[in-house]
């Protein structure tokens, strides 16, 4: 079970559900816009209220594209000029989306920082006009209101949001290596207070409507409606509009106050914040936290702090200027490019390029109620798929069912679901010890022990009971699928579905197809994965597929580094400071030393000396001594229940003494150790593309970042090669090759890129 616990920045990226900046290709019209009817923004005057409706005809979401902005300005001018209009309501006609953010293409089209800065300044000006509007504007929010959309909304005089689950507000720019560049860094601190504003902008998290109301981000909430004389979504938007119109009139009539009476806590907070000393302390604390979490590898959070500080300490002019300049600078950083690339890749990997399967999976059976099996059950059963969880023993099954319950119960504590919903979801889970009911299953996922003989045994048992259309998926992390399928009487229905542990947190799903796997089987597996909320890469078959295979050489190198006398703590520090969310030693403990040993041995046999480096005996000895990682309480570190800090496992020293290697001074600087680890990872990834295991560099990047924790700021191995330079990487590898041999021999595709600088994996 090659599982990785990705934390920090990665998990924040992973947890986003809505686009901040959407790269939708909005068509540009060659005809002069004044000649044409407006397509994105329209308005209608209802009595004395102008209802401004936004609807991008070319996309599922509204973005602040050039076209949208131009039409919005025109409409606003008309509204302001119309004497019959006393107030305005701003609303989206799209169900589930107010404005999802600025148009990413608009920023990417800029060639230099000055252009981006100007873009930011135009946005600032537009929203300033909205903020100073003589006629009150009510933003009626239903659906995602993110990034530029939120900045637009908070420059309006009043905000009403629906309580729909789809309604989320937030400033996710930081996750793309940017900052809210249209006044957000200036308005938010004043609106929700400095601490909350930092929290929003530095984490980029989505805020639900009820929380937004508590924070003071919106003024009123409206319930979403059920079926009526029209469809629920359509009627909800209408209702929101009706309510917003009422409020707009109320504001004009001075019946509805624009500012809320501040609570005692709020007053107290404002009072404390009025002292520069306190504010300085906050900047310091926040900066410290950011540095600790980001290791200084991500420039955006620091620029956000800088922009907020400029506005609060030196006044609005300096603030807006700092914001636009910082925005310009950030947009052209490699970090932002990498993060945007990841975002776009994620969007690609959330689509089913294999089409709609012939029959949707309605019943899914899982074999093995271990950590993996139960994890898969948890992410399946709450999507309304009937789930059968089968184990061989009662205690095993009970543990698995408890894990599913616990996972759902945590959600009730976080109030994302009610206890009633939890119970109702759990009613869709059947735990059992036999194969009864398997004839109704549309797909069976096995998560039994990683042993080809056991896999063959269950495959045969399952095929005896399932119906002809049922798909058999193996959740193996390294065994080639074709070897498993060898025992099948219907190999076209056999596929690999490699989940990552913990399944409910890790977003990646690696789907492995053999030459015999039918297209419909693949389509069905991808459809199930998407339903489970996964980001999916589909790769070819082979030992270790893609993810495990990339991890192999890196772990081999890590063992060698340990043998050379670098301690686990130092190893972790070196990798995390390179941008890995989890240090390599910790990672090995999380995955399990036994699993690592197993995989290293298997892959070593399959790929030969390229996978060498550290001595596999080191891992084997650790396993023999019971140092299997976190699960056994001891691995590279010692884990104690209830203790947050972990100490290095001192008993490891004896093993390392036994297998001690003398470090070679020319390739053992901190930086060299880092590149030794990373270059082997990257080379293997490129080789996977070369060999056709990978379908595209995009999938390679997504798999490495979301499955293995490759530094998000580098955007994945392929983007790293592009930005770092293939030639430079090859040069480093040649130096290591001179010392260690073929472990570091660059693959042909990498050499091709090194020889021709115009070759890039990402255009």
């Amino acid at each position: 079970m090659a599982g990785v616990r990705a934390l920090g920045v990665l998990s924040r990226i992973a947890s986003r559900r809505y686009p901040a900046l959407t790269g939708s290709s909005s068509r540009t019209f060659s005809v002069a816009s004044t000649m044409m009817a407006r397509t994105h923004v329209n308005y209608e005057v209802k009595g004395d209220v102008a209802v401004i409706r936004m609807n991008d005809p070319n996309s599922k979401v509204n973005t602040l594209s050039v076209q949208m902005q131009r039409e919005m300005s025109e409409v606003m001018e008309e509204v302001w000029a119309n004497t019959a209009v006393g107030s305005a309501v701003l609303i989206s006609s799209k169900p589930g989306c107010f404005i999802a953010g600025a148009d990413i293409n608009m920023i990417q089209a800029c060639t230099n920082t000055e252009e981006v800065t100007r873009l930011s300044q135009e946005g600032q000006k537009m929203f300033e006009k909205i903020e100073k509007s003589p006629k009150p504007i009510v933003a009626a929010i239903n659906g995602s209101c993110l990034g530029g959309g939120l900045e637009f909304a908070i420059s309006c005089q009043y905000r009403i949001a629906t309580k729909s689950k789809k309604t989320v507000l937030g400033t996710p720019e930081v996750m793309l290596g940017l900052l809210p560049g249209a006044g957000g860094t200036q308005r938010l601190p004043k609106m929700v207070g400095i601490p909350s504003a930092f929290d929003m902008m530095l984490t980029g998290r989505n805020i639900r409507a009820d929380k937004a109301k508590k924070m003071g981000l919106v003024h009123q909430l409206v319930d979403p409606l059920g079926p009526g004389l029209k469809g629920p979504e359509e009627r909800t938007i209408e209702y929101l509009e009706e309510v917003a119109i009422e409020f707009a009139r109320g504001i004009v009539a001075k019946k509805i106050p624009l500012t809320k009476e501040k609570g005692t806590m709020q007053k107290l907070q404002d009072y404390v914040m009025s002292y520069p000393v306190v504010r300085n302390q906050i900047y310091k604390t926040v900066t410290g936290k950011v540095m600790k979490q980001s290791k200084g590898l991500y420039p955006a959070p620091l620029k956000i702090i800088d922009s907020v500080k400029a506005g609060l300490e030196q006044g609005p002019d300096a603030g807006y200027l700092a914001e636009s300049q910082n925005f310009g600078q950030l947009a052209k950083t490699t970090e932002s490019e990498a993060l945007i690339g990841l975002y776009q890749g994620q969007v690609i990997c959330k689509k089913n390029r294999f089409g709609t399967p012939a029959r949707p999976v309605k019943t899914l059976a899982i074999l093995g109620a271990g950590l993996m099996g139960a994890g898969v059950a948890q992410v399946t059963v709450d999507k309304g798929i009937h789930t059968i969880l089968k184990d061989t023993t009662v205690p095993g099954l009970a543990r698995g069912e408890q894990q599913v319950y616990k996972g759902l119960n945590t959600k009730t504590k976080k109030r994302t679901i009610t206890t009633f919903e939890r119970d109702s979801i759990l009613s869709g889970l059947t735990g059992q010890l036999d194969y009864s009911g398997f004839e109704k299953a549309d797909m069976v996922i096995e998560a039994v022990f990683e042993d080809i003989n056991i896999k063959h045994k269950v495959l045969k048992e399952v095929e005896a009971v399932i119906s002809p259309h049922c798909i058999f998926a193996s959740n193996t992390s390294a065994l080639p699928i074709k070897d498993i399928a060898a025992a099948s009487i219907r190999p076209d229905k056999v596929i690999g579905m490699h989940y990552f542990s913990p399944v409910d947190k890790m977003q990646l799903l690696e789907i492995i197809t053999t030459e015999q796997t039918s297209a419909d089987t693949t389509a069905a597996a991808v459809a199930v994965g998407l339903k489970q909320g996964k980001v999916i890469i589909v790769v070819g078959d082979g030992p270790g597929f893609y993810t495990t295979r990339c991890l192999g050489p890196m772990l081999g190198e890590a063992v060698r580094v340990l043998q050379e006398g670098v301690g686990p703590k130092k190893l972790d520090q070196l990798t995390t400071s390179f941008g890995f969310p989890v240090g390599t030693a910790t990672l090995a403990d999380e995955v399990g030393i036994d699993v690592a040993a197993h995989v290293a041995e298997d892959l070593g046999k399959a790929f030969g000396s390229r996978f060498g480096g550290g001595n596999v005996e080191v891992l084997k000895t650790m396993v023999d001594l019971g140092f299997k990682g976190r699960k056994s309480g001891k691995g590279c570190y010692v884990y104690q229940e209830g203790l947050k800090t972990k100490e290095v496992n001192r008993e490891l020293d004896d093993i390392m003494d036994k297998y001690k290697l003398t470090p070679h001074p020319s390739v053992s600087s901190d930086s060299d150790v880092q590149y030794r680890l990373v270059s082997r990872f990257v080379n293997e990834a490129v080789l996977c593309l070369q060999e056709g295991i990978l379908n595209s560099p995009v999938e390679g990047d997504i798999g490495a970042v979301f499955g293995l924790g490759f530094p998000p700021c580098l955007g994945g191995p392929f983007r790293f090669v592009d930005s770092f330079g293939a030639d430079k990487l090859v040069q480093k590898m040649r130096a290591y090759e001179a010392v260690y041999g073929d472990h570091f021999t660059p693959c042909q595709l990498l050499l091709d890129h090194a020889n021709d600088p115009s070759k890039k994996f990402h255009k």
Partner: protein
Amino acid sequence: MALHWNLIAPTLNVITVPLPAKAVVRELLSVTTMLATKSKKSLSRPGVKNIVLVEGVRTPFLLSGTTYVSSLLHEGLLNKTALPKDAVDYIIYGTVIQEVKTSNIAREAALGAGFSDKTPSHTVTMACISSNQAMTTGVGLIASGQCDTIVAGGVEFMSDVPIRHSRKMRKTMLSLNKAKTLGQRLSLIGGIRMAHLAPELPAVAEFSTAETMGHSADRLAAAFGVTRLEQDEFALRSHTLAKKAQDAGLLEDVISFKVPGRDIVSKDNGIRPSSMEQLAKLKAAFVKPHGTVTAANSSFLTDGASAVLIMSEEKALAMGYKPKAYLRDFVYVSQDPKDQLLLGPAYGTPKVLQRAGLTMADIDVFEFHEAFAGQIMANLKAMDSDWFAQTYMGRTSKVGAPPMEKFNLWGGSLSLGHPFGATGCRLVTTVAHRLRKEGGQYGLVAACAAGGQVSRDHAVCPSTGTVLMHCLIAEVHRAAVAQVVKEDD
């Protein structure tokens, strides 16, 4: 516990008052021929037992927290009925908020009212249609030949809902019982914190969705575009009609009830015809500030009890009773508890009509439970919408809205009040009375149920997590028609 059954007792006693029963059968025969020409054919089917409503009564419905509060010390009433006690085969009562001490309230009430201790009784619960359930359970018992004479009813006493200790406190108290040593007891007692002492009020929300009924009604009204004006107009209509009916003495199912230490109450006290201006002044009660459901256009928390006597026709006639109506057919339906919580009547009406082989045009009297004016209006709009019928009900076309000139003409739950458990019997009895007075043949009762209700002051919603709807078709009894015909002569 005295609280509940002292409300039921009078209804139980009155219900058994025998009617002048001379020569009923002869009279019946004389009108049969008239019936054949005057109206549509009867729903009587060969081989199916005719089940009749003999009598229906209720206590006055009173606003919670008014007169009944003082009836705490009431003792059982002596019964003065001429009906032999043992003639009643079975007693079924419906209630929503149950008192733990009298979980089978039907039995306690029956004993308290002096019924034979040999008469079995049980209590049913189904939110606002609990007494509907009591009646239909009775119908089932008669139809299956188990019983011939059933007393069914419902009671609600919102002035005194049980309030529980918090879960923590209950846990501590239960553990305290089991504690063996003084040390154990002390440590348990020592563990009591302020949080333990906070009482647990009856759930204010639907169990499955955590939404209060008023909220749900407001959203429903909005979903169907029911305006505040429409709701206020309907509420005013309900109060005005109720007042008229009360003044004209039409509410003859109400019996006087002596509250110990107070005067005799003989009238519903929630009827308050007001003006549109007055109603318009009220603020939204649930969805603030832009909602449309107000205290005035919602039904209020009510205390009250009701009962009906249901018999097989043979038995009723044999005992010399003059039945009021046949109870012909009924359905229960249920929907999604979130968005269609209060939409039961729209779903149930076409279904029960279909079962009975009738159309909307055949129905002469409609009695719908009015939980909220907005809810009633939404249901009427849903019934009148082809789109809704096709999209959500899988029908080819709408069933049509009942004509207002046949609809709740003697007021409804909005004005008379709505003791959750007791409303069903009131509706059925009213249909029977209206059929007779208005000379109709078929009546339709519809009520939706879920959790609870609204008050004029504050919302307390018992929670049950069901979304159900009950529709019942009643047909005027030949005897009742005969009576009218005779009066006309």
